[in-house]
């Protein structure tokens, strides 16, 4: 993988780095193209994963990010080396956008030893700590307190690192959210919780809509209860996300105080790749949101601003297809993990004492 994988850590193109350091986000042509390439990579990856699932090559659960790409792409543009990212189980884009090798991500889905966590976690547990990806968790809400702990540790260690903590609308009715938000607000009051709360509000917790989950449907307002400031952003518009992402991360880095952004988005793919009957929503609704597809919107902008033409867009899409074909082949051809992996990593340190059987 080349440019599209060089996230904004210390990779990236120099001119872009400069423009970002200035605070205001210059969504110049080059930057928009870079974002487009990333979003196409994620979309193409997810479509290939869905095919792999239907072919029976991917087991367990598979939750794809199709429709929501602008959210993670925009926020992770503001990622800086040393920051930590944590999310729930719709986690493929976060791993990819942080620079995880798509081959190792796909191999993980395929349950191979070359996977990003050696075939031991699968789709829901992608980790790439070197690149700031701290998981990948399967229990809705369960990961949220961890992110608050990360942020505390970052201040304890006297750094200006921050945590990007992703959660879905469905997690916000869980006690873990409320307990963690309370701690974040409390510790953040005196600058000890540099945590960016990113609500990926795709409007459904599995098949239950926000309105059928809570009487307080203004999700951002829930943060008021914990003294955490917040705002909303159009999560289908990567430029809008980008602006919020850079502004808020900068502020959090400076103040050490948490901040929440509710990104309104929509998952046009089913909740899980095995969900064929979507009784909880209408085809019309999906169609309506597909018209606001984040990739489509960005393509429109690129053409309108004469940054790329149709042919150039097609070229990127083709290139990504070829890349993902290679990725899929790699995953397919990789070996399953060796049997001894069953008992490794159960414990840290010398005593893997349950491993002899």
């Amino acid at each position: 993988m080349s440019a599209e994988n060089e996230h904004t850590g210390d990779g990236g193109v120099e001119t872009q780095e400069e423009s970002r350091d200035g605070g205001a986000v210059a969504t110049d042509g080059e930057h928009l193209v870079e974002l487009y390439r990333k979003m196409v990579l994620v979309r193409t990856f997810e479509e290939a994963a869905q095919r792999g699932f239907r072919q029976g090559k991917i087991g367990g659960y598979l939750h794809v990010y199709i429709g929501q790409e602008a959210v993670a792409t925009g926020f992770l543009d503001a990622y800086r080396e040393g920051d930590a990212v944590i999310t729930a189980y719709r986690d493929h884009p976060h791993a990819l956008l942080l620079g995880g090798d798509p081959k190792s991500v796909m191999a993980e889905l395929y349950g191979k030893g070359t996977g990003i966590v050696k075939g031991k976690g699968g789709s829901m547990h992608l980790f790439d700590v070197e690149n700031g990806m701290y998981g990948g968790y399967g229990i809705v809400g369960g990961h949220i307190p961890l992110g608050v702990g990360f942020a505390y540790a970052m201040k304890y260690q006297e750094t200006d690192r921050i945590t990007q903590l992703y959660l879905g609308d469905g997690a916000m009715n869980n006690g873990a959210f409320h307990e963690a938000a309370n701690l974040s607000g409390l510790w953040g009051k005196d600058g000890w919780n540099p945590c960016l709360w990113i609500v990926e509000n795709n409007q459904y917790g599995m098949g239950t809509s926000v309105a059928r989950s809570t009487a307080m449907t203004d999700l951002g307002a829930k943060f008021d209860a914990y003294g955490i400031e917040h705002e909303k952003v159009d999560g289908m518009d990567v430029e809008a996300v980008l602006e919020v992402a850079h502004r808020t991360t900068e502020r959090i880095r400076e103040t050490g105080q948490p901040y929440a952004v509710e990104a309104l988005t929509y998952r046009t793919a089913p909740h899980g790749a095995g969900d064929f009957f979507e009784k909880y929503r209408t085809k019309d609704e999906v169609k309506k949101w597909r018209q606001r597809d984040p990739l489509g919107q960005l393509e429109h902008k690129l053409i309108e601003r004469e940054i790329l033409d149709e042919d150039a867009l097609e070229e990127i899409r083709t290139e990504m297809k070829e890349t993902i074909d290679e990725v899929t082949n790699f995953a397919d051809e990789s070996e399953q993990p060796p049997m001894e992996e069953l008992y490794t990593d159960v414990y840290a340190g010398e005593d893997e004492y349950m491993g002899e059987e």
Partner: protein
Amino acid sequence: MPEKTYREALREAMVQEMENDDNVLLLGEDIGVYGGTHLITDGLLDMFGPRRVVDTPISEGGFTGAAIGMAMMGLKPIVEMMTWNFSFLAADQIIQTAAKVRYFSGGQVEVPLVIRGPNGGGVQLSAQHTHSLENFYGHFPGLKVVSPVTPHDVKGMMITAVRDPNPVIFLEAGALYGTKGEVPEEENPVPFGEARIAREGDDVTLISYGRQVNLCMRVADKLEEDDDVSAEVIDLRSIRPLDEETIVESVKKTHRAVAVQEQWRYFGVASEVAAIIQEEAFDYLDAPVERVSGAEAPAPYARNLELAAFPSEDMVADAARRVLYEKVV
């Protein structure tokens, strides 16, 4: 060696480790300003300040999860559960994350976390405040579970726990915080996975852990006096890892065993001990292994009922007599 209480020994271990390593910090309910419900952390706020002695809201799932996050970032948190009964509110964090995240991250993270607090009953706290959770947490790979009973061991095992790169469930004998014993001033790390022979004997092995070890010691005295029976008492100390060898070697010598636990009879540590003995020392056994357990009911409040709900000297002594084929009076 100076005498110290269980409470003082525990506190001393934490102070020593906090002085040794800036990454060690404490979190819990009322551990700072209040001084700790059981005064284990009394005075530590003044010594180490509010960033290292963190008073939390009543929010077990939240602060346990946050501590896991801190541990993943390289800190070494010691979380106080005011009592282990409240840990069910944090069980998702402990079981689903602390125990497993190293595995499902393919070994990319460590969770050097200690969760400690009083465990077990005996002080009339009734149903919701009385649990003995060794078997519950001992079930999950990824956790280490220890249950020290002497002041010496509570200090030494806390030191080991803090230095361990894994999540450690540290189950204190809550009813014994005031008991005294010899504790060295210097660091005395006690390794996990090594049982202690609390009393040597030849005729029968009494196997237990936590508060019930003291009960077994009293029973052993009684058996010697009344029955001329020499009982060996094993204090498991560490539940996961479990020292199978010490159990098996002792039974090979005595040929008879009684496993004593405060928790309920079924699916408990005593069952595990009995299974290990029949697997590893079947040919040496002269009698079936007996289990002595708590009554199959939630813990009652009234003193007489509570006493009946936990193993008593008579119950253990009678079990020993049964495996010795002595007449039970």
